[in-house]
């Protein structure tokens, strides 16, 4: 084995931990066949409970959803249990509906808007909290409250705060003389989405902050000392040291954020219910509407599958890249 450095910089960082199973290891030192078989068997045995759990709680609903999505299922069909297979009809119906693409567009805007602000603010806060200062721990803990609140609570909170007549937010605008800006963000189609994004950013910042903070803390302080000795100022240290070293963590945080944000339902449901008109109907809300408001369960399932595709593809691409990086290291 050789020591190596990260590719992005020529700076030496702490050796990453890579666990390798003996069979898949580079050494190719195979142990006795029977022992290996026994070990494999024991491994399967020990992972069986977890696999069963995953199968029952993840795989089954997924397959059931796929199954539903290729059948004609409305309420009556549920009663009779008589589901007619209709191939890709549900998918056809969904993708030929303008409302689906509208929801997809809203979802993208919502996700992109949320991620940009969550990440930027989260990163700034992580940079703050990585320094030690009095009561840092307390404040960091308080930040997490936003993330720990049930979405129903934070949603209701924002609904009240953004209310035009008595909301705290508009009250504030009026006190500082910005009356022109005071209006109900959530009942105006042109500002409802920004309002919803603002609420979601507030919820998501602590999560970003926490993960980025862990990343920042794992950077060897010796590197900063070395850079400082070489005459790098704070900005240069951030630009040439922190940012490159944080790239993998940042990618993970952003991708986790994407997956979480893309499927946000409860917060939007509480805040606007998808309205006014359809200005905040994100994809999960569209799925809910077709399945449980309009009772087209087959179509709802098809839309649900399509909704799943985006985070799934992103996740697969990410994991593959990670594996490649792991192999290169």
């Amino acid at each position, binding site marked *: 084995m050789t*020591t190596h450095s990260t590719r992005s910089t020529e700076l030496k960082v*702490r*050796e*990453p*931990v890579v666990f*390798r199973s003996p069979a898949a290891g580079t050494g190719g030192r195979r142990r006795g066949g029977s022992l290996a078989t026994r070990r494999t068997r024991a491994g399967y045995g020990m992972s069986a409970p977890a696999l069963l759990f995953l199968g029952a709680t*993840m795989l*089954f*609903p*997924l397959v*059931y*959803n796929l199954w*539903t999505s290729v059948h004609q299922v*409305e*309420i*009556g069909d*549920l*009663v009779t249990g008589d589901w007619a297979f209709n191939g890709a009809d549900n998918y056809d119906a969904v993708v030929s509906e303008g409302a689906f693409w509208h929801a997809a567009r809203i979802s993208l805007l919502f996700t992109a808007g949320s991620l940009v602000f969550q990440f930027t603010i989260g990163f700034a806060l992580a940079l703050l909290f990585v320094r030690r200062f009095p009561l840092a721990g307390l404040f960091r803990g308080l930040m997490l409250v936003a993330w720990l609140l049930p979405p129903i609570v934070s949603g209701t909170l924002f609904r009240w705060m953004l*209310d035009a*007549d008595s909301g705290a937010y508009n009250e504030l605008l009026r006190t500082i003389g910005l009356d022109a800006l005071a209006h*109900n963000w*959530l*009942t105006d*189609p042109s500002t409802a989405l920004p309002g919803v994004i603002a609420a979601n950013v507030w919820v998501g910042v602590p999560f970003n902050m926490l993960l980025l903070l*862990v990343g920042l*803390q*794992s950077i*060897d*302080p010796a590197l900063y000392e070395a850079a400082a000795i070489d005459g790098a100022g704070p900005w240069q240290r951030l630009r040439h040291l922190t940012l490159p070293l944080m790239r993998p*963590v940042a990618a*993970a*945080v952003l*991708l*986790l954020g994407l*997956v979480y944000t893309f*499927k946000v*339902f409860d917060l939007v449901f509480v805040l606007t*219910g*998808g*309205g*006014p*008109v359809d*200005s905040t109907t994100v994809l999960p809300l569209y*799925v*809910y509407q077709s*399945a*449980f*408001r*309009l*009772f087209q369960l087959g179509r709802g*399932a098809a839309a*649900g599958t399509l909704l*799943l595709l985006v985070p*799934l593809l*992103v*996740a*697969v691409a*990410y*994991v593959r890249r*990670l594996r490649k990086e792991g192999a290169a290291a």
Partner: protein
Amino acid sequence: MANRANRPPTAAGRGPLPRRSFLRISGSGLLAAGLAGPLTACGGGGGGSSDKNLLWWDYLVEDARQPGIKALITGIEKSVPGLKITRRTFPYAELEPALIKGAASGDLPDLAIVDNTSMNSLAPQGLLTDLTDRVKEWGQADAYYKGPWSSGVIDGKTYSVPNNANCLALYYNTELLEKAGVEPPKTWDELSAAARKLTRGSTFGLAMSAVKTEEGVFQLLPFLWSAGGDLDTFATGGATALTFLGELVKAGALSKQCVGWTQQDVNTQFTSGRAAMQINGPWQLPGLKQQSKVKWGVVPLPVDKEPASCLGGENWVILGTSGKADQAWRAIEYSQRKKPLAAYLGSVGLLPARSDMAESGDWATDPTLKVFVQEFGNARPRAYGEHYPQMSQAMAEALQATLTGSSSPGAAAKKAADAITPKLSK
């Protein structure tokens, strides 16, 4: 093992989680999170019940209603020897989805009290027991108001018995109207003029709900019907109704905020003096009578071409899967006897759907209750068939598009009509 030997000691101790393993963990977490997405598969515990045990679902969850319902259940259990009732309650919006999910999992009650619009989606799907023969034998159908009764009749077959009815009327703030020298409006023109005149400072002339659910549609439909329109003529009738409401918003007499208001929010506006008039139902009466901040009166909804109100209320249904339809029917039949019904409706603050009860008790003497009971004659059910949820959504969006100014009334009505018409002909 070479890997480990090469690793620098973690004595630095400051990094709690090595980066690479952090990435590993987050990577697998990512996959899991992706898979665990918004799957909507549903399940439910089996609700096995013995012969004498009737499962009953409803959404009448308000505290004040519990004693009345408990008394009714006790009465039923006494009148049918050996019968036991197990009741389960849901939030309003959850009952219909629960019934539909129950249809998939086989977890359904024997009888339920459902919103009368749910008849649109439940009955045509074969979820409900056909009660036509039992009702004929019973012979009391004529005692009910036509609107409520017909909400349970689909394709000539009777699937439900109305439990209670409600409809909309116009509440007004007596003091504000007197101060402005305005009479309670009887026509659309008067309503429009009054609403404008009553709008002062932070007080709006009129408040109504235009939220993007059935509640908003419930409030829109009387305007559509009063203009002489209906769902099959929404492009024209809808345009008239939407234009009228849109003008009120433009004039500032109806707050734009109403697109986010439920009917409960509307009542809050009214009782806090921020609205001089409100469109609301009789379920607000108990609360309004308890408060003393606002003096109020109530009149029928103002009329354009013909008087109209939208019929709400709850209906009794027996699920098709119930093996105990006879017992369930006896429970319904008991609940509709005048004496227990009067006692129970009175105690829970609901209005009877039986016209032969309108002449008795509080319903005959209380002038505010009387307004609603008399309005039942003009109230229409929303019996538009199984695709009503789609039509309702189209109308809610048209209403919101008009009131937020994102679309002209004509264009919004046209768009909604395009969505409604094919569903009606089906």
